[in-house]
C-alpha cells in the first residue's frame, strides 16, 4: 500500500534524517515506527503525505508515486493525526471534523452529517460537536483528531505520536479504541511512537529505527521480541522483552481443568476439609468471588460471608502475561478461567502457565527462524491479542 524505495532525507546543514529506506507497508495493517528521538521516524511518516519532501528515492501510495500528485490533493486523501491533536481552536468540534469533506466539496450539510457520524464512531457524545476544542479534555481532543483524520474515509492513516500527551489511563483507553476502530475500518495505519509497549500493543508490524535515520529491523511484534536483529534492537526492547512477548499470546490455547468451586450460599460447615486448601467461591451464577482458605474457616455462616482473598478471573482473550501475574499473586497457585460473560469454566495451575510461557518463547523464536530461511513460507503465528492480522508479509 505504501512503498518506500531507497528513500533518503538530508538537510542542508548536513544531518541525515532518513538514510536509504526501503520498506513496503501492506494494506490494512498497523505499522508502528519506533526509535529514540532524532531517529527519523517522524520524518519517515511526514514524507508519506509530503509534509517533508524526500531528497532522493521514491515513495508510492496505492501504487502511485506521491510526487506525481498535487500535494494538497494527496493530503486530503490521507488521514493525519498529530500529538496535541492540532485542532483548529476557532472552530467547533463538528466543523473541525468536517474540514476535509468541505475541502473535497461535499457540501455543508453532508459534511456535517458525516462529522456527526464520526463523533459517534470515536465515542464522543453528540453535544460535544457544538463545543470548541479547548472545552474538551486532552483525551477527547485526541479522539476528535482521529475523527477529523477519518472524515473523508481515507485508506491510509498517519499518526504521529497521537497519544503522547495524555495520561497513561487515557492512553490505554485510546489504544483500545484505536484497535476497535481498526478492526472495523481496516485502514493502512502508520503510527509513530517512542513507547515500545504502545508499539507492541498496536502494531501488526514494528519498524525499529536508530539514530541517523537507519531502519534496523521491521518485523511482527512476536518475531521482533523473540529475535531482535542486533544488540541495539534488544536494548531498545528492554530487559522485559520476554514478558512483553507473553503479552502477545492469549490464554485461548492454554488448557484448564474443571475446578471444584463452592457456591457463595453454601454453609461453611458443609465444606469438606479434604483436598486443596484454597477453594474458589463463586456467585450462584458462577462468577468467581474470591479464594477461601479451608484451614481458617469460620464457625458459622455461608462461604460468601467468610473472608475471601481477591481473585482476578481471566478470559480467553486475556494475555499469558496477565495470567502469569495472576498465578504469581494467587494464594491457590492457580488462575480462574471464565467465559466472556464472566462465568467460571475452570482452573489453570501456575505450572501449566509457566510451561506454556516457556513454550511460547521457543515457538516465537522458531517461527522467526523459519521465516528467515524461507521468506515466502506462511508464518506460523501464535494466537495473538491482535485483532487484525497483516494480509501480506514480507521480510524486512
Amino acid at each position, binding site marked *: 500500500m505504501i512503498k518506500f524505495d531507497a528513500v533518503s532525507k538530508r538537510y542542508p546543514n548536513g544531518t541525515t534524517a532518513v538514510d536509504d529506506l526501503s520498506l513496503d507497508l501492506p494494506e490494512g495493517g498497523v505499522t508502528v515506527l519506533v526509535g529514540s528521538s532524532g531517529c527519523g521516524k517522524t520524518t519517515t511518516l511526514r514524507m508519506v503525505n509530503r509534509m517533508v519532501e524526500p531528497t532522493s528515492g521514491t515513495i508510492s501510495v496505492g501504487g502511485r508515486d506521491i510526487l506525481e500528485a498535487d500535494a494538497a490533493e494527496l493530503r486530503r486523501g490521507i488521514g493525519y493525526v498529530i500529538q496535541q491533536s*492540532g485542532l483548529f481552536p*476557532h472552530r467547533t468540534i463538528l466543523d473541525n471534523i468536517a474540514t476535509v469533506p468541505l475541502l473535497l466539496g461535499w457540501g455543508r450539510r453532508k459534511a456535517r452529517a458525516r462529522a456527526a457520524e464520526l463523533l459517534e464512531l470515536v465515542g464522543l457524545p453528540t453535544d460535544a460537536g457544538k463545543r*470548541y476544542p479547548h472545552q474538551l479534555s486532552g483525551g477527547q481532543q485526541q479522539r476528535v483528531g482521529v475523527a477529523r*483524520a477519518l472524515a473523508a474515509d481515507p485508506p491510509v492513516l498517519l499518526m504521529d505520536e497521537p497519544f503522547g500527551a495524555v495520561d497513561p489511563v487515557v492512553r490505554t483507553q485510546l489504544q483500545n479504541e484505536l484497535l476497535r476502530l481498526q478492526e472495523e475500518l481496516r485502514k493502512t495505519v502508520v503510527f509513530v511512537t517512542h513507547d515500545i509497549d504502545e508499539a507492541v500493543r498496536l502494531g501488526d508490524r514494528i519498524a525499529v529505527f536508530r539514530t541517523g535515520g537507519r531502519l534496523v529491523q521491521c518485523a511482527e511484534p512476536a518475531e521482533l521480541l523473540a529475535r531482535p536483529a542486533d544488540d541495539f534492537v534488544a536494548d531498545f526492547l528492554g530487559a522485559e522483552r520476554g514478558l512483553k512477548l507473553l503479552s502477545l499470546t492469549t490464554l485461548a490455547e492454554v488448557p484448564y481443568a474443571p475446578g471444584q468451586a463452592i457456591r457463595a450460599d453454601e454453609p461453611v460447615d458443609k465444606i469438606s476439609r479434604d483436598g486443596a486448601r484454597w477453594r474458589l467461591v463463586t456467585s450462584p451464577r458462577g462468577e468467581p468471588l474470591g479464594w477461601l482458605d479451608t484451614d481458617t474457616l469460620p464457625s458459622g455462616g455461608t462461604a460468601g460471608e467468610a473472608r475471601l482473598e481477591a481473585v482476578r478471573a481471566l478470559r480467553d482473550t486475556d494475555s499469558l502475561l496477565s495470567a502469569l501475574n495472576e498465578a504469581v499473586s494467587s494464594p491457590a497457585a492457580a488462575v480462574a478461567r471464565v467465559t466472556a460473560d464472566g462465568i467460571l469454566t475452570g482452573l489453570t495451575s501456575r505450572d501449566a502457565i509457566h510451561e506454556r510461557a516457556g513454550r511460547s518463547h521457543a515457538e516465537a523464536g522458531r517461527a522467526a527462524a523459519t521465516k528467515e530461511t524461507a521468506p515466502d513460507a506462511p508464518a506460523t503465528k501464535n494466537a495473538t491479542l491482535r485483532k487484525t492480522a497483516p494480509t501480506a508479509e514480507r521480510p524486512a
Partner: protein
Amino acid sequence: MLELLKNLASWLTSPAQWSGPEGIATRVLEHLEYSVLATLAAAVIALPIGLLIGHTGRGAFLAVNLSSFGRALPTVGLVTLVFLAGGLSVWPVYVSLVALAVPVIITNTYAGMAAVDPEVKDAAKGVGLRGRQILWQVELPLALPLIMTGVRLATVQVVATATIAAYVSFGGLGRYVFDGLAQRDLVQVLGGAALVAVLAVAADLALGGLTRLLFRGRPAAAR
C-alpha cells in the same frame, strides 16, 4: 487650580463654543475625518504587508523592527518636513499620521500571525489545506484578535497626534491647543486636550466593542 477647572467647565459647556464653523462640533468632525482616513489608509497599507510577512515568515526582522523605527520617527519633524516640501496642503497631516500608524499595525499583525500555534498550522497543511486556505481559514481568524489590538493602538495614537493638523494651519481639535498657546489662553488649550483625550478613549472603546462583537460566541481561549 479650582478657578482653572471652573473656567474649563464653562468653556466646554458654553453653547456658543459648540456651534459654528469654528465650534467644537465642527472641530471634532474634522479631527475624526483626519483620524479615520489616516487609520484606514494605514490599515490598507499595513495589513497585507503584515499578513504576507506572517504567512511566509520572510521579513520577520523587518516587521519586528519597523515599529521601533516608527516610534523613533519624530512626528513634528515629519509634518514640518512634508509641509516645507509640499507647501500648504493637507498632505503633511496624512503622511505623518499614516507613517505613525503603519508600523504599529504591521508589527501587531505579524505578532498575531506568529503567535498561531505551529501545530495547528502543521495540521492544517497536513489535512490538505493550500497556502491561501491556511491563511484565510486558519491563520487570519486566529491572528485577528492581535490584529485588532494593533488597529486599536494605531487609532489611539493617530487620534492623539492628529492635533498636528493645526500646526500646519488646518483644523481639528488641535486648533484649540495651538490657538490657545498663541493667545496664552490656558483654558482653551486644556479644553482642546481634554476633548482629544475623550475622543481617543471613545475610539478605543468603540473598537474594543467591535472586537467583542466580532468574536461573539468564540471561547476566550481562541480569542
